[in-house]
């Protein structure tokens, strides 16, 4: 599975039934609320073996599956 598919599948586990395209806005559509984000961050850290600090938890980085992927790529490079 590529990274983007993996991210979408994590999102689907957290909020079943939400079909999410890579660019769909997760904040406006309320897929992500404050407690879902906590779970998502934990799942992403586990899956991709990166450390996501509060500085990374911004609206910009979590706006869409594409944005999450871009953040993971960046964190891996660091």
């Amino acid at each position, binding site marked *: 599975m590529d990274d983007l598919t993996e991210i979408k599948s994590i999102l689907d586990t957290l909020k079943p039934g939400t079909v999410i395209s890579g660019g769909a806005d997760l904040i406006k559509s309320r897929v992500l609320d*404050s*407690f879902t*984000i*906590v779970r998502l961050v*934990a799942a992403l850290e*586990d899956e991709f073996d990166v450390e996501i600090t*509060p500085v990374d938890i911004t*609206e910009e980085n979590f706006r869409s599956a594409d944005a999450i992927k871009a953040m993971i790529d960046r964190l891996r490079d660091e």
Partner: protein
Amino acid sequence: MKNILQMLEASEKRFPDKTAFSDGETEFSYARLTRSAKGVGTALARLGAGFPFPVPVIAPRSAAQVVGMLGALYGGGFYTVIDPDSPEERVRDIFDTLQPVTAVCSREFLPLARRLLPGKELISLEEASDGEIDEGLLSGIRSRMIDADPAYVLFTSGSTGKPKGAVLTHRNVLAYADWVANAFAIDENTVFGNQAPLSFSMSVLDVYTSLLCGATVRIIPKKLFSFPVELFGYLNDNGVNTIYWVPSALCIVANCSLFEYARIDGVKKVLFAGEVMPVKQLNYWMDSMPKGTLFANLFGPTETTDICSYYIVDRRFDDAGSLPIGRNCDNTALSVITAQGREAAPGEEGELYVRGAIVGAGYYRDPERTAESFVPDPLDPYCPQTVYRTGDLVKYNDRGELLFISRIDNQIKHMGYRIEPGEIEASVGALPGVRAVCCVYDSVKDEIVLVYEGARRADEKSVEKLSAARLPGYMLPQRFIKVPSLPRTGSGKTDRTRIAAEYAGGNNNG
């Protein structure tokens, strides 16, 4: 004073141009707030719905909700703030109880209100705010109002699932705001960073203490609790100096070690209530904030306006310890009464009973449940006085401070012992890597179930092993369940009922 609106009007005279409420998008000065609320009040009064009458206010989390609330009072009604995120079924339950003849709605909720109140005339929040004001009509209504009139009905989930509508009066709110202002030195320089939804009792503190003192409430957009660094940025940018949040919200900050990444500059007072504040996360806040910051644990039910006892943190507690709920608020009497109906001796457990100006009138359209909880004072059979039974088990420690033990309903009876879930939660919650815990009881299997959130290293085996070293055998949970995050209620508290349903077969009774 005898009417909530007098607080608004007095502050409007002193500070017409000062911001009363803002939400990141819209600001209401005291003058604009008064003007808009009178507009809504005029529209409601013209319906001729009688007096007093229920007014549901349906709008997204915003400063405009306050216009709807105060507008309902101007129009001779009492309000119920509907949580815009609650399922339609729950709103229907609330409407069944209120049987409203109208509602004040923002544009986006008009279709919902039309479905719920077919054929009824609805008030548009946006239009009525800018609408005509009939001062004569409004002052006619005011002249008939007394301080025992209902100001709002706030719905809490009853144990049967059917929400109970607690009725709070103008007198209750005036007494409460007065206590808050004195106890925490709130004045016109106070800027609240509001977390509590306006449909939740804790918001009464922010809203009405501000109206009394001419202070400012910055309503924090809900999504900022997802983005902690931005949350701190919002507090700084808006000059927030006082916060009154549920512990779960304070724990978001502590659990991600936010102070290592961001600072807050101006916050001087940190108040919390609504659920037990875990000491580990409180210690993190106290270690991270400047010396002299005030921390206070407030305690009480919706039925006593918001709070009946409080404790200003004056010493350090062990991570696994628990905070006292302290002592009575001004003009509030607390008694601890044993199951036998006598006053508990010092150190003895009993149910907390509350008497005083903050005790509400009862439950709306529900004489049965009102009679169960608002009872004659069992300690004084001669002088007719109503006291509120909280359903909370408490005792005094040897410093004369009240300690909260548990809800009487949640107490676990296991292997012949009476066990307090809170004690287990405090102990396990203090373990390294454990972020949040909730202890429930499966009465069918007779098993204590510990559900928790934690770091990767805090796996079920190691948490169980460390717990076994701290807890007596009979208190050691039979099941440890690690979850990515504990479910929360709309107000942000840990959702005990849902956790019991999911992990203990819904059998959360001792």
